[in-house]
């Protein structure tokens, strides 16, 4: 990855921020920056970190949204039934963990290709959610009793993201397990020939990724105080986009935490900026879609030359 290509991502980010700052007076206000950081960013960041983990290991996880939703479902339902917040969080862990375990079984156990396996999970999860909510009816919590847990989660949102960043970052760059999964992603055959348990490792990665997505699910449902079925899927494309955007930042073209964060920022800034300039919600998807496409093109072209 040439030096110039590497800094394309942060450069683009700076350019876009400057552009929006100049054209929209409200962009650089503290309130707006806070809303960028807090609203979309936290959840997308967590989902993208989960995706970064899976892509590092050489796979892709189309069910990251499903894990988000399952966690949210368990969380809200338990709270609604009067359960303690601690129990609700445990339920969320279980919900997401179930998705992760299912993926681990398919990919690690049955050696199915990650794309197809997680595609299957995605749609089975869809069925499960539709059945549980009788066709996609969101579950709202009674507005009456204030729940301190929500306020707690809201306040600690960025801390959670920070924790995940440190955790995933440390795992990928400094841990033995991280080294194994990166090797399994870059050269699965070589890793296999070196005695690395590639399939077992990727199974563990799927579970870990689902758990991180589960945290996103708790954050999401805490902030909207409800569970809306299939809302996690909205983050899927952007999570993929941010992760691959991030690979351009790495010297090696590998998925990495810093790059993914820059990617998340880029996409959030694009969405927020377009919103402020009055561009309709729907053009936002096209815009971020085009950005993702161009990044993929860049990523694959420079990978060939590298």
């Amino acid at each position, binding site marked *: 990855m040439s030096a110039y290509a590497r800094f394309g991502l942060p450069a683009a980010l700076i350019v876009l921020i400057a552009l929006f700052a100049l054209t929209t007076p409200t962009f650089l206000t503290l309130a707006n920056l806070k809303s960028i950081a807090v609203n979309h960013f936290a959840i997308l960041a967590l989902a993208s970190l989960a995706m970064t983990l899976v892509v590092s290991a050489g796979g892709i996880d189309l069910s990251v949204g499903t894990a988000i939703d399952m966690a949210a479902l368990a969380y809200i339902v338990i709270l609604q039934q009067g359960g303690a917040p601690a129990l609700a969080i445990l339920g969320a862990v279980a919900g997401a963990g179930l998705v992760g375990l299912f993926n681990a079984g398919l990919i690690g156990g049955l050696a199915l290709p990650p794309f197809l396996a997680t595609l299957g999970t995605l749609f089975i999860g869809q069925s499960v959610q539709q059945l549980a909510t009788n066709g996609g009816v969101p579950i709202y919590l009674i507005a009456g009793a204030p729940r301190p847990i929500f306020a707690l989660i809201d306040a600690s949102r960025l801390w959670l993201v920070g924790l995940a960043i440190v955790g995933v970052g*440390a795992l990928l760059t*400094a*841990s*033995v*397990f991280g*080294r*194994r999964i*990166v*090797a399994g992603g*870059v*050269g699965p*055959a*070589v*890793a*296999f*020939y*070196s*005695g*690395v*348990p590639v399939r077992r490792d990727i199974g563990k990665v799927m579970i870990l990724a689902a758990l991180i997505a589960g945290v996103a699910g708790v954050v999401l449902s805490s902030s909207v105080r409800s569970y809306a079925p299939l809302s996690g899927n909205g983050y899927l494309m952007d999570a993929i986009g941010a992760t691959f955007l991030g690979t351009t930042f790495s010297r*090696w*073209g*590998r998925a990495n935490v810093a790059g993914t964060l820059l990617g998340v920022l880029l996409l959030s800034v694009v969405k927020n900026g377009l919103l402020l300039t009055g561009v309709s919600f729907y053009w936002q998807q096209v815009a971020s879609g085009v950005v993702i496409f161009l990044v993929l093109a860049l990523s694959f072209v420079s990978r060939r030359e590298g």
Partner: protein
Amino acid sequence: MTVASALALRAIRKSFGGVQALDGATLVVERGSVHGLVGQNGAGKSTLIKILAGIHHADAGVIEVDGVKQTALTPSKSERLGIHFIHQDRLLAPSLTVAEALLLGHEPRWPGTPFINRRRLERQATEALRRAFDIALPARALVRELSNAEQQIVQITRALLNQPKILVFDEPTTALVRREADFLFQAIRRFRAEGLTVLYISHYLNEIRDLCDEVTVVRNGRDVARVDARSTPTTRLVSLMIDRSVDQLFPARAPRFGEIGLEVVALTLEGVFRDVSLGARKGEILGVTGLVGSGAKGLAQALFGLARPTSGEIRVGGAAVRAKTPRAAVAAGIALVPEDRRRHGVALGLSVRENTTLASLGRFRRFGFLAARREVAAVDGLIARLSIHTPNAETPVRALSGGNQQKVALAKWLIKGSEVIVLDEPTVGVDVAAKADIYREIAELAANGAAVVLVSSDLMEVQGLADRTLVFFRGAVVADLETHQLDQDRLLTLVTTGRDDRETHVKAAE
């Protein structure tokens, strides 16, 4: 009036990044003859053929086809000149039928419609197969349902449909059994009778003598002889192929042998080798050699858990080992430096450091994290010890030369310190300087107490390095001798014919 030769490559020179693959090689093939091309691995045969195919361009020399000088050959030009290659890989689409595969690109149609005339397609295919081989393969069978030999028949027939002038066979019998090989030879004799010119490359010297009119021997990038096939005994061919120059490649050794490190008892791998027994002591380098398909490679695979033996036992340090995966083999103390360096040996996208410590991460573990400084120190030490030429340990292995990549592959197991180390073609595609370094390390491995198994088709390498040598031929061990009991002639004869030199001499005298 002299008739122009069908093919003449004269004084061809070609180098690849400092390695001189061809150094003035000449090959002249007379029209209507079957011409054999022999030489050891790395002698330059395949480079010569690739130049003929237009895949590489010669640095110097002249190519003439039918007396007409050719410049800048390309694959399509080569084909248009009537030169067709029967490669080792079949290059047939597996899900097509025999008829479809034969006539792909020239499918007969119902006149005036865009539809394939299936009946004519099948009839033409059956006709072609009958004419070429007098064989009746079902035109509707799928390519993937055919045996190797049958696929080769389809491959050859397809080439024949192009009315070639010259057919080049590249190691055609490696995957064939005796009966199928004989069938192929009958066909080749028929082709010759019909005026076709055949260039036949093979390691099996008996076949060369049976089939060919003339033979060209290539050695060290040059042709060293062009002889009449039938009147030249195998032993003479063998001695022409061998490079008798003394290389300072091999380290002096004073091996000291310990107890048995690796033991194999009556090991059988269905279809690959049968009833193999061997013992390698600690400190010993055991050479294992044989042609492709002889079973030597299969042994390496079975030892490392890549192929499950049908019967028999493998013992490391006296304990039975049943490795079903490489991971289990590594845990049992067996290491493998694989033949395909780029696909199995080193991960091109990982750094030198990441590759080197890949099999021994546990050694650098501290509370789940990598002890970075210890790792760096260990890797730097190995880089120095093996003289790995790399800007630093963070360089991606992709950027290293073949020889240095192989050193990294070796370093990985040096760090691990396995009791048994299997090396599969450790110096293929490696330059001379790196070869010497690698040989030194292999000797060092043995000196440090490992039992080293050296699987190699490079006879010079086996001769120079191994204490004992096992020769495989068509799935069985045909010799197990101290290396000093074998001279190169005897070794090559064993490898290419499965019979011991002495016997051949005795037979000739009868």
